[in-house]
């Protein structure tokens, strides 16, 4: 097959892929068995099972159609237990591929009935077709990436136009459209638990911005704590300010400094 002649674009082969149990993991798999420790790394290195198979064919001279089915099956079943901690969906795709290989292998092992004249399609042809199809688009993707493009190989040549700003009014925006946009973001974000959206009341976040602004615009490096509390805002205003200062400190945006007990407290932005 001519595929092995094509350029390789599995990029990070030379480098250490990651640490597994504290040991640098340098090697990509040599056969379909991937050490469970390294599974996650490989899932990220390859775009999917087809990508992995192409790699194995090109670089390891692996005869993917002559694999020890029993061993592979056992090894892949082990993964099912591990998958709870991994990306389930992707790992499942590798399992489907393993199952497909096993199926091909088993069909190949079945004796052919001599009296059967009907030409059956070779069980391998579907896999080969898919590998080829994928290879074509892998190359097309490389071609697209290499094409000259704006802001990398070309830049627009533009000239200022003096009256442009007064001529073109900026678009009008409805508050509702912003809220709906945000609603969508929230709905999307809910699907991914690692996207934390902070739940401070808006008045606190607004106050955080205000305090940072005062601190960053001030001439003095330090601003006294009490200056952020306004009498006319009453108790609730004081609470908002206090929470904002605590939150800023927690997020590492300001330092709260007190020289000695009971002395004045100062705020300082953690910036130059």
């Amino acid at each position: 097959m001519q595929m092995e002649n094509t350029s390789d674009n599995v990029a990070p082969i030379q480098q250490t892929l990651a640490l597994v149990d504290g040991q640098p993991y340098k090697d990509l798999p040599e056969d379909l068995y991937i050490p469970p420790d390294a599974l996650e790394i490989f899932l990220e290195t390859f775009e999917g099972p087809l990508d992995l198979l192409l790699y194995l064919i090109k670089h390891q001279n692996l005869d993917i159609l002559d694999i020890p089915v029993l061993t592979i099956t056992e090894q892949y079943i082990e993964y099912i237990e591990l998958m709870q901690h991994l990306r389930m969906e992707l790992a499942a795709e590798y399992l489907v591929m393993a199952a497909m290989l096993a199926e091909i292998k088993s069909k190949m092992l079945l004796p052919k009935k001599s009296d059967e004249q009907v030409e059956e399609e070779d069980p391998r042809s579907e896999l080969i077709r898919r590998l080829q199809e994928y290879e074509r688009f892998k190359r097309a993707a490389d071609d697209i990436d290499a094409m000259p493009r704006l802001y990398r190989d070309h830049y627009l040549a533009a000239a200022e136009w003096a009256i442009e700003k007064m001529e073109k009014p900026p678009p009008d925006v409805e508050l509702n459209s912003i809220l709906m946009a945000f609603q969508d973001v929230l709905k999307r974000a809910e699907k991914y638990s690692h996207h934390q959206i902070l739940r401070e009341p808006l008045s606190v976040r607004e106050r955080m911005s205000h305090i940072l602004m005062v601190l960053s615009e001030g001439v003095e490096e330090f601003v006294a704590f009490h200056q952020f509390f306004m009498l006319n805002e009453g108790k609730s205003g004081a609470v908002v300010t206090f929470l904002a200062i605590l939150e800023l400190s927690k997020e590492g945006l300001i330092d709260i400094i007190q020289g000695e007990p009971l002395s004045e407290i100062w705020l300082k932005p953690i910036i130059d």
Partner: protein
Amino acid sequence: MNIKNIIEAALFAANGPLSIMEIQDLFLLEDRPDKHLVRKAIKDLKEDYSAKSIELVEVASGYRFQVKSEYSSWLARLWEEKPVKYSRALLETLAIIAYQQPATRGDIEEIRGVAVSTNIIRTLQEREWVRVIGHKEVPGRPALYATTKEFLDYFNLQTLADLPPLASLLEIDLSANQDLQLNLGDETPPIKTEPIQDEKESLSKPTTESIQ
């Protein structure tokens, strides 16, 4: 490649005026032209363009190419036609800054799951709805963005607390009294149901220009 050509290219590609120093910074230290050379190149460029419809002028923060004013009336026609609209990415970015301020670009990207283009941030700053209020003391010192008083004024808000609280936002049905267009999901516009058209036709269909 000569200095004049490189400066010419840079002035056309830059998004605003370039100062002599910025121009010098285009070059590696060892081939950096001195001020005198840069000025000489600029003078030559000015002459090269004297008969053209654009000119190289000096403004407060440096040099830029601009269209000669006598062409304005023609360009106005070009400008009027396209209605402008903000992109969905811009609205989402604005909403995140409003609710999560002070927020870095990284914060916005983390919530949206995609990169935030510089154009969006710039547009929001030009509109004076968003400003930098400091820098976060982490590697790269990313800017911290917050909304402005102009933002509140534009949307008729006294304070940010007039926005619906985050917790209840998910439950509100905003679409009831508003334009459905805004509710477009990722890939399934609720209204669009027309069958596939001839590809060329659909590609050439004029769409409203959306700016970032």
